[in-house]
């Protein structure tokens, strides 16, 4: 699994780095970045999905390793229509 913060959408709510601090970190303004290249070890996948599901701006993009680009999801979206 890989995560990416869309810098055009992120405005610094900080939910992702609060919920998954091993996967996301704030920059000097409090906006979020993925740590390193955004790869998520299996034991942190649930936290990364939780972080994505709590972004008010839908700015966290999750790509599953075995998915093609067409199947990339923009969130763990349990409730969004």
């Amino acid at each position, binding site marked *: 699994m890989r995560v990416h913060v869309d810098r055009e959408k992120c405005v*610094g*709510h900080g939910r992702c780095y*609060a919920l998954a601090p091993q996967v996301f970190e704030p920059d*000097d303004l409090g906006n979020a970045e993925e740590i390193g290249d955004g790869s998520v070890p299996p034991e942190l996948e649930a936290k990364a999905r939780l972080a994505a*599901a709590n972004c*008010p701006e839908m700015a966290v993009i999750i790509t599953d390793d075995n998915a093609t680009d067409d199947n990339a999801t923009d969130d763990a979206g*349990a409730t*969004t*229509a």
Partner: protein
Amino acid sequence: MTIDEHSSTRVTDWATDFDHTDPTWAADPYPIWDELRSTCPVAHSERYGGVWLPTRHQEIAEIAYDTDLFSSQSILVNETRPLTPAPMGIAPPISSDPPFHQGARRLLLPAFTPRAISLIEPFTRAYCEKLVEELRGQDTVDAAQAYSQHIPVRVIAEMLGFPHKDADDFRRFVTHVIEHVDAPEEERFEGFMELFNYLQAQIDDHIENPRDDLTSYLLAAEMDGEPLDPDHVIGTIALLLLAGIDTTWSAIGASIWHLADHPEDRARLVADPSLIPTAIEEFLRAYAPVTMARLVKDDMEWNGCPMKKDDWVLLPFPSANRDPEMFDDADQVIIDREVNRHAAFGLGIHRCAGSHLARMELRVALEVWLAAFPEFSLADPDSVTWSGGQVRGPRSLPLTIG
């Protein structure tokens, strides 16, 4: 009928004549929004010179994101349109539009990152502990007036480097600017002058005696290589003083109100304080205090609505947070809700710059309160009062703590 007389009359039809300062809205706005969401998702009122009211998450988000069509130059609905010219507005960056907005916001954000805010947490905790010590031993206390309201006032005074003894003045400024939007124009002007005269005296003192606080930080700050315009400095300080007080007071009070009325939630947080950060996100969703506003930039038809230049648009984020299209069991308060994309701090480029400060204050206030008073209940549910307008929270909250 004059505009003033019209605004003071009670609302009978929320779809065509709503007023966000109506006592019915203050007491319980949720049924109003629920009804509008399903029957008239963008309501309109002739009050205040014309106001639109979207109630679904989708339209509220769309307007918050659209800074081309909607201006932030004034964000408190009242009878007058902004006196301060664009692009800065009276209190940058909340009252600024792009491109000025970005620079004004960037210079402020480093002082409000979670790391920067963590430095003020020990002060906040010590102050909350002092407040609860003063309340111990009493049977009944007003958690809004004797606890919640003091915390953000004291914390922002500390951050700005203002005298703690002026706290009562700050609360008066706040009430005047934010809660008395329906006061006559001359009275509102006098209130603004009193606030700005006070701030100017504090700024002059900081120019003479620079120190390590937010006021001196802003006085030394640069934008595009130039020092800030004096109007910019005083406007931003006014914003910092005003924006964080009513709002955070409301969030703390609403959370305590919920816990007073839901013993099972209270017992759970007392037994497991590590759940508090998750619970406060749910309190922020369900009882979001802040409704923002925008001004329509030009005549246009928007989603079928004939909007006119300088019409107001209210952005009731607490209504977005109760939209069943966006949230499962939107009307239920679920303190361990896992998926929670709430918009309590707004959406888009004007996301509340103080959100990390507000979260810290809310968490610390609840941690200290619950540790001191694990058992409490509403002394008299009928005596709880709520502020109306664009910042909603308990203003009287008598609790039995003995």
